[in-house]
């Protein structure tokens, strides 16, 4: 069934033990070599650890793709800024189309905890937090249990790990909004500078990393940075998880090395559902611009989709078949963004709502040719003039759909 040859697909890293029963338990995890990476990291010392992570080309897998070692290195030294510093795990996975963090936590919570402890050691943080979205209740309980086990086994050492649950805002998945939420405030993104690594939680240096990024750390430490870097492309090391959903035969989470062609991901997921023709693929969750069926050769690392005007994002691959109306897709996404816009800055708050209303009118049969010009102009005016990435998305997503599928829009918006 799977047309993908096993040869081109090296051993997975994060998902390799997923078939192991009772992997959530500490005993199983340790039997499979768990927490050896942490031991090795502690033994090797901070500088060597940082050097290995640097060599690995590990990049933030929450969507931004910022080099992890670079991020850590911007945390001011103890002499420059004495006092506590924090590591925060961003497990507020809310991007429609993304569900890899959920799987990672459900299947292998200790892998995350181990990675978190390595990161905490690397920046000398004594307090770490796991911020998990409120809807992930099962995962919260799994993490709670795993943390208790790890603590009882004395694995946390001097580090304390606290679990925090979100209250349901998509925007909390953005690092600075997440920190605001943790401080008990409204999830309104901050405007760097200063960046969280300089002044984050409670104004202290804070590293915010995604679940997937941190889960990679034990493996990098065990096998070396060079090994990890070699798995991927020159600029993005290792593997990456893709959450494949939409019109495919086998939706689910797939692990591939960085730089895999989009075509292979689609093939691994069993191709388009019901043998229909492919129309489009959203490569990284709804906030990334759409790719057409002709762009299936896009290389999926942080650079590949960018060349096509899109982003790898958090690897939420949404497959759309020939029956999909792209105006409906645009409306669906804008409705989501309108609902989730935090409301802090005006272009996003009003722009998303305006987009949604125009698109809704088009779907109801009231669209005019001028509406397309308005969408184009307003969308362009929002992008790059807002506080955070959500606002940028408002303009970018609809404009990409309009550019790549003009017929769909002309059918709904004409005089």
């Amino acid at each position, binding site marked *: 069934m799977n047309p993908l040859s096993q040869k081109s697909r090296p051993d997975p890293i994060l998902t390799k033990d997923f078939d192991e029963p009772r992997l959530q338990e500490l005993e199983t995890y340790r039997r499979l070599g768990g927490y050896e990476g942490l031991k090795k990291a502690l033994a090797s010392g901070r500088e060597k650890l940082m050097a290995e992570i640097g060599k690995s080309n590990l990049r933030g897998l929450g969507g931004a793709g910022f080099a992890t070692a670079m991020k850590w290195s911007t945390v001011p030294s103890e002499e420059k800024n004495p006092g506590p510093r924090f590591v925060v795990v961003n497990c507020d996975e809310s991007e429609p189309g993304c569900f890899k963090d959920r799987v990672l936590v459900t299947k292998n919570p200790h892998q995350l905890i181990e990675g978190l402890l390595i990161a905490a050691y690397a920046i000398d943080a004594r307090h770490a937090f796991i911020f998990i979205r409120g809807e992930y209740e099962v995962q919260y309980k799994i993490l709670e249990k795993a943390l208790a086990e790890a603590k009882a086994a004395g694995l946390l050492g001097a580090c304390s790990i606290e679990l925090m649950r979100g209250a349901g805002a998509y925007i909390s998945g953005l690092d600075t909004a997440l920190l605001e939420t943790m401080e008990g405030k409204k999830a309104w993104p901050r405007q760097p500078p200063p960046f969280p690594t300089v002044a984050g939680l409670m104004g202290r240096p804070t590293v915010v990393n995604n679940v997937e990024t941190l889960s990679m750390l034990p493996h990098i430490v065990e096998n070396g940075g060079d090994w990890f870097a070699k798995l991927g492309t020159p600029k993005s090391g290792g593997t990456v998880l893709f959450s494949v959903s939409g019109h495919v035969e086998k939706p689910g989470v797939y692990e591939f090395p960085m730089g895999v062609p989009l075509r292979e991901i689609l093939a691994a997921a069993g191709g388009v559902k019901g043998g229909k023709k492919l129309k489009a693929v959203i490569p990284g969750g709804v906030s990334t611009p759409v790719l057409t069926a002709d762009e299936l050769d896009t290389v999926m690392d942080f650079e590949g989709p960018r060349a096509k005007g899109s982003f790898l994002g958090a690897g939420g691959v949404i497959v759309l078949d020939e029956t999909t109306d792209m105006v409906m897709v645009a409306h669906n996404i804008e409705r989501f963004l309108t609902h989730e816009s935090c409301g802090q800055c005006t272009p996003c708050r009003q722009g998303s709502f305006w987009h949604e209303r125009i698109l809704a009118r088009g779907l109801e049969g009231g669209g005019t040719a001028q509406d397309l010009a308005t969408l184009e102009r307003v969308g362009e005016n929002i992008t*790059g*003039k807002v506080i955070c990435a959500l606002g940028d998305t408002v303009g970018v997503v609809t404009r990409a759909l309009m550019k790549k599928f003009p017929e769909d829009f002309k059918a709904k918006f004409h005089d």
Partner: protein
Amino acid sequence: MTKKVTFTLDGKALEAREGQTVLEAATDAGIMIPHYCWHRSLGNPGNCRMCLVEVEGTPKPQVSCRLPAREGLVVKSLSPAAKRAQTSALELHLVDHPLDCPVCDQSGECGLQDYYMGIGRYVSVLREDKAHAKKRQVLGPHIVLDQERCILCTRCTRFVAQISKSHELGIFGRGHNEAVDLVPGRTLDNPYSGNLADICPVGALTDRDFRFQVRVWYLDETESICPGCSRGCPISAHTSTQRPWHNKGRRLARLKPRVLDWLCDEGRYGFSDFDSDRLGRLTAPLSEVRSALQTHRDDLAVVASGSLSNEDWKAFKSLFVDKLKVKRFLFTPEPDQVGSEDELLRRREKVPNLEGGRALGFGTEIKSLTWESLGQDIAGGRVRSLYVVDRDPAKVLGEKLLHKLELLIYQGPRMGKTGGLARYRLPATDWLEENGHFTNFQGKIQEYRQALKPLGDARPDWKIFADLEAGL
């Protein structure tokens, strides 16, 4: 001394303190870059996105309220790209704005109108219905909220958090459902609540006292000093005399802070009834008053306090101390003129110019009676005549006691209780009807200017004193 840096704004070299934002430095230099959320005393959240400027070497436009000025920085606020960014932000501010300018009090001094005429002037392509929200919600004794007009700049929530520290307002909801509202169970009732109408850049928060009274373009502005307490805040008196048939002829429309950012509610609303209870005509020729004073110069007590200007105090001294050699004075304000104070602006003494009198020795070398001892003196017959300057002894001592007096002269702008009992009433101007100076509690001498014509026979206090003295 902070380091100075020079940067370029629209081709003009500007100086700024190091770390100062471009927007603030431009404002200091008198160049206005459009903005709503930034306020010098309330910070720069950067949420209105109006102050976008083009910065050389940066691909995206930057908000100038968060852009630190640095040496050699080249900023363009008038370039086509910057203008487009500002106009698009304005357009988005106006998407759900009700555009009810004809019935909005802010009309004429509204940020949305100003920038639309300045940088907007586009033809609207909006075809959607406007979103609706709560209207004319009374927040407290002084302020009404219209959520539909609100642009969520958060100036008001920052004010109640940082300045009044009373935390009555918050932003509730999310996204386009977001709205400023009262924190459940609270009312907007703090000593500085009136400032919210000032800092609101649009018509969302309006002043209940000023609401629907007069359109702002009919107002005249005069620089003045608030007579509400011994702080002497610089204010701007907005008077409405062009259309007396409106608003029951009310002449003083509102007071606004000047120089300082804030004004307390006591000062702002303390003079709303400026023209009520006024003394009209002179009740007797001055010669009659003079001879009465001559007769009673030995049993005369004079009550005056800090509502006199420095000019008035001088003439007062010349008449009562130098000429009539009066021994009994009372300079203490009525007990109800001593109120609450705080660290921001408000002072305990609710009269403006005790200090001006003190500089001439009133209350220091020239001792003051107390209200109690004055009462005893009247009861004991030691004081048989009383000259009252804009104070209200009847309120403190009771009318019955004042009936024992053989002579009661009252001089002041308003009747009060005492004015009604006086044999001679000398109508005086109130502070908005004269030029003068007040000395505040720090010894700062500040000028206030005439904003209104005197009512009836009213004349400045110093003129009345001088005229009385001239004929003695």
